[in-house]
């Protein structure tokens, strides 16, 4: 029996939780980390309680799914009923859940104000809106900019299936790619397919995935390993977490495919211990896949054996670097080692090893099923396919998105992201996390691909995208990122260990009003030492936030260094609050709100701030109703 036939048996017997073919009402509740942080567990309990009280247990099914990407609106509750357009309630509290059960489910009257689209859609999606493998959101949500402009390949199932159910994954085409590979393709076929898809590593460096597989395939070795790098560590990045929490099987399937292609029988998923939910779901998925014969020996009767072990990272950012990661798996201190030899030649325990990140792997099954040409048709000439971004910072729709390569920052931030909140202006976008760079408004129309971002002084990185409005101080932001990388430097190589520390000291001097003109030379020389001579990618990219902000926001640095002034009033030591005597009515509000009691004054007489005690928290400025506190 072929692997595909074995799989069909599994699919035939599958009983998915989330499904179209039911006359029941399905309630999809996001229970990823973002939703749980928003209180989804309490809402879920209230919801189930209300359903029971309303006696709807037989008509309504509650399905727990991953994150659909609108993290700031969690907890989300999506209602799918045969013959009706789906409805997505947002920021659902336990109280709201009860009301929704009463009015919508029982009473048949949706509550438009609580819906994500305010009840805009009233029709069921018609012909032309069939869900395909990768665009399950298009059918129901293409009237919302947030979803319509996305193209979900890696995230195709996230939020659409129950991540703890293998049957759910099977029902949406899961493990078909693996079965196809096992039946119809040789390892070199698989490698050729991935190569011609143009897929590049989504962990940050953008190395062609097919080439990596080919190198490992060709490397001599009695044993080879396949590793999934799930040590996502950029501040503000959560692409991999969402994928693992929402669709763990896709990673397992892709690892088995990669293992088959490169000649590995053992895989490791290195996932951070700070992702307990992802770990739990991976464990469930691994167990289910082994039970079903989709992992382990003789997968689907094909003769190919492959199994996966989980390894938890203890929280070092640098362990996302592949050689440090492998050292960590081996039980050593997580420090990068020089390359070459590359992991493909000598990796884990000195054996040829292929290492890919979560998003890269999640893109593999669709590439196998839909074909390399299909994937290569998405994106730009040099950057094919799609990219997942974690949209964070001063943007309306913070959350998780996946877009075709080549879209512009403007489309992401203003169309999908909904623009800058509170009527503020856009100032900069940081791509690539602490290793990336800050891009100002003139780059808003730069297409997002590996080369363009590099040219602009930023990097693609793993997908963190932090938007900053015009109240941010770019010197302060650069200092923030540098603090992170300095803290996370493994301490092995000189430029990163010592150089980033000195850069940080310079930045601290600048933001406290003690900068001097030679600091530009210091930062440039230290930055260059890191970029050109550091041992690993972490060190080589660590100065990027500083160097890119100097390049794009030189005037702000000048203000700090030459005039001891922070234009955005963010650098505390450069800000001074004082009360304008003429405007102060002596209401005493500032005095009562001052946390350090440094404001004095008689009622109805002008107050005074004691500058020696003031900690420049800005409370007085915020609370004054008469604009009598001046910030300079």
């Amino acid at each position: 029996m072929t692997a595909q036939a074995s799989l069909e048996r599994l699919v035939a017997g599958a009983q998915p939780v989330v499904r179209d073919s039911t006359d029941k009402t399905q309630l999809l509740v996001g229970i990823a980390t973002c939703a749980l942080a928003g209180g989804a567990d309490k809402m879920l309990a209230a919801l189930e309680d209300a359903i029971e009280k309303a006696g709807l247990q037989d008509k309504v099914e509650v399905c727990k799914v991953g994150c659909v990407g609108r993290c700031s609106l969690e907890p989300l509750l999506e209602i799918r009923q045969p013959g009706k357009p789906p409805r997505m309630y947002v920021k659902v509290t336990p109280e709201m859940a009860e009301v929704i059960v009463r009015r919508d489910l029982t009473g048949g009257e949706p509550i438009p104000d609580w819906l994500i689209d305010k009840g805009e859609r009233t029709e069921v999606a018609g012909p032309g809106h069939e869900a395909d493998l990768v665009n399950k959101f298009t059918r129901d949500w293409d009237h919302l900019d947030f979803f319509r402009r996305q193209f979900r390949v890696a995230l195709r199932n996230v939020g659409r299936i129950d991540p703890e159910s293998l049957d759910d994954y099977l029902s949406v085409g899961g493990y078909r790619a693996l079965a196809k590979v096992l039946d119809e393709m040789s390892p070199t076929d698989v490698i050729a397919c991935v190569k011609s898809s143009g897929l590049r590593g989504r962990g940050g460096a953008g190395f062609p995935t097919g080439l990596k597989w080919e190198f490992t395939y060709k490397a001599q070795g009695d044993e080879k390993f396949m590793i999934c790098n799930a040590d996502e560590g950029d501040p503000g990045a959560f692409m991999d977490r969402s994928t693992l929490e929402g669709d763990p099987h896709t990673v397992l399937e892709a690892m088995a495919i990669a293992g088959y292609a490169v000649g590995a029988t053992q895989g490791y998923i290195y996932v951070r211990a700070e992702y307990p939910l992802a770990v739990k779901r991976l464990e469930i998925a691994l167990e289910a896949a082994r039970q079903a014969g989709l992992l382990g020996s003789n997968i689907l009767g094909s003769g190919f054996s492959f199994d996966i072990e989980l390894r938890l990272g203890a929280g070092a950012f640098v362990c996302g670097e592949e050689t440090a990661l492998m050292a960590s798996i081996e039980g050593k201190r997580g420090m990068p080692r020089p390359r070459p030899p590359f992991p493909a030649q000598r990796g884990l325990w000195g054996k040829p090893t292929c290492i890919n990140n979560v998003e890269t792997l999640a893109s593999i099954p669709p590439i196998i099923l839909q074909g390399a040409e299909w994937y290569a048709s998405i994106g730009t000439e040099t950057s094919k396919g799609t990219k997942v971004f974690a949209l964070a910072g001063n943007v309306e729709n913070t959350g998780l998105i996946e877009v075709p390569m080549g879209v512009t920052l403007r489309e992401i931030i203003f169309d999908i992201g909904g623009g800058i909140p509170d009527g503020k202006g856009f100032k900069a976008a940081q791509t690539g996390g602490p290793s990336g760079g800050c891009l100002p408004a003139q780059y808003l129309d730069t297409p997002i691909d590996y080369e363009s971002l590099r040219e602009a002084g930023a990097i693609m990185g793993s997908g963190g995208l932090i938007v900053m409005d015009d109240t941010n101080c770019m010197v302060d932001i650069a200092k923030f990122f540098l603090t992170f990388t300095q803290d996370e430097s493994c301490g092995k190589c000189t430029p990163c260990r010592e150089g980033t520390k000195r850069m940080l000291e310079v930045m601290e001097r600048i933001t406290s009003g003690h900068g001097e003109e030679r600091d530009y030379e210091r930062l440039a020389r230290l930055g260059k030492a890191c970029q050109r001579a550091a041992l690993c990618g972490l060190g080589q990219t660590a100065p990027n936030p500083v160097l890119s902000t100097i390049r794009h926001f030189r005037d702000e640095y000048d203000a700090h260094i030459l005039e001891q002034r922070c234009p955005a009033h963010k650098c505390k030591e450069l800000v001074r609050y004082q009360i304008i005597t003429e405007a102060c009515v002596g209401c005493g509000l500032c005095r009562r709100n001052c946390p350090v009691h440094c404001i004095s004054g008689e009622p109805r007489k002008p107050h005074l701030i004691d500058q020696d005690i003031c900690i420049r928290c800005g409370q007085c400025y915020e609370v004054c109703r008469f604009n009598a506190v001046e910030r300079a």
Partner: protein
Amino acid sequence: MSDVTLTIDGVSATVPRGTTIMQAADTVGIRIPRLCYHPRLSIEGACRVCVVEVEGARNLVASCHYPAEDGMVVRTHTPEILQLRRDIVELLLDNHPEDCNTCERDGNCELQRLAYATGIRERLFAGERKHYEKDNLGPAIIRDPDKCILCGRCVRVCGEIQEVGCLGQVNRGFKTVVMPAHDAPMVETVCTGCGQCVNVCPTAAFLEKDATADLMKAIEDPEMIVVSQMAPSVRAAIGEAFGEAPGKAYEGEIYAAMRRIGVDYVFDTQFSADLTIMEEGAEFVKKLAEGGPLPNITSCCPTWVKYCETFHPNLLHLLSTAKSPMSMQGAMVKTYWAEKMGIDPSRIFSLAVMCCTCKKFEATRPELFVNGLPAVDRVLTTREFAWLLRNYGIDFTHLQPEEADNPLGESTGAGVIFGATGGVTEAALRTAYYLLFQKDLPADALNFEQVRGLKGVREATLDFEGTAVRLAVVHGLSNANEVLDRLIAGGEYHWIEVMGCPGGCVGGGGQPYAGANAVPLDECLLAQRASALYNLDAAREIRCSHHNPSIQRLYQEYLGDPLGHKAHELLHTYYYPRVPMGVRPQEAQV
């Protein structure tokens, strides 16, 4: 394996495939500056001092690991690289105490030399400096993290050459520090005290515990009688500390220098090396006759003894119970000699000048005390002794050689070669043969070439008049493990010699620093030191321990027979398992 040809700074170099750029450059007279690199250790790639430009490469590469490729064009000193290298070394200086003038390594510091070579003239980056407490709690090794520049050589030598693994990097980023697990004092850890970390450290982050001050005090004390001994391999290396080429032995000059600094009686550890052979040889022959326990494993190396106590406690019964030459010498000084001279042993300051840092630890082992007094009061390393001579203004290399005092200064060629790996075995074989067959080996059969040399593990089966004697000689603890693994797996040996340091005592942790033009642990250097000892042996009239007249007299006048009651009391010891800090007793194989 095919060759590759590359161009380095316009010079063509042809080297075997797999050669690194740095090695290739070395072959054509281009010495790329380096720091963390060490030819006998794994590649760390940490310091980044050796970065070079490779045409077509995206970034600079570290030449210490990057393989040379055919047609490669390398530039090692572009303006960019020179500036970068200067900045990198400046960064190291910024986090270093820079107390050069008062530092033990002043004038012999790799960082100092590098700072000079890179031409740092202006300091632009200075800021905070890391600070960690100095660990000077132990008797042998001092760890001063403030001076550490994190090249990782100590970590690698400890883990790779010695397989002790006492040291590791702890904390991250700027706070990174090399220390034992749990920040335990070195003395409470698995540290064997071998001092190889001191040997390979480019700065003064590891040092031996200074004993010169105590010696100087004793010398100035009119009540104290200072009696010295010096290890065989001190004479093979001390010249290097005074700028002489390696390989030249200084013996009479050291005796003379000892007297110049005020030592009252100048003896030599080689005397008791002969004594050790008498006891251990007899012990070995007895074990052979009685059928065990075999193999007899040597115990004169304190590093090996501590290693065995820590990592192989179940093999301790195989160790020879004979004390080390140093401790035997001390014991004889404070008993036999003191009685003979009518001196109260408590007035004797017993000084040992050793190639070894661990001897400082050995001297503190309570079971080696004699009548409540330490057999050896203070141990100076070769380095400390050389410094002391400078301090006293002694022009060492121009001293007229003198003779050692007697009776504890007389020695044979067998005692001399103790300092080289395999030497103890060779010396023991010369005497064991005599003990077994009551006749000497022919003069032309005294050299046992099978056990000489620097191969990590040397095994041989000797035909002793029809009896096969299976030997293993190892130096460096990783090599010891190789043989011990075989032994544990059922391998049959009659005799195993273990020396903790690479090359044996000539490569001891207390020997002079390698200097500007050499590399610590360099095999060539070790071989030269060893050959100095073998040459001394060859030139001796008496080359077997049992023919040492002073030894014979010692047994007649005082000890009786080897392994006899008195000998047992004064010349033998015992061992015990050690459980280092952080290891739960039930986990230790006690």
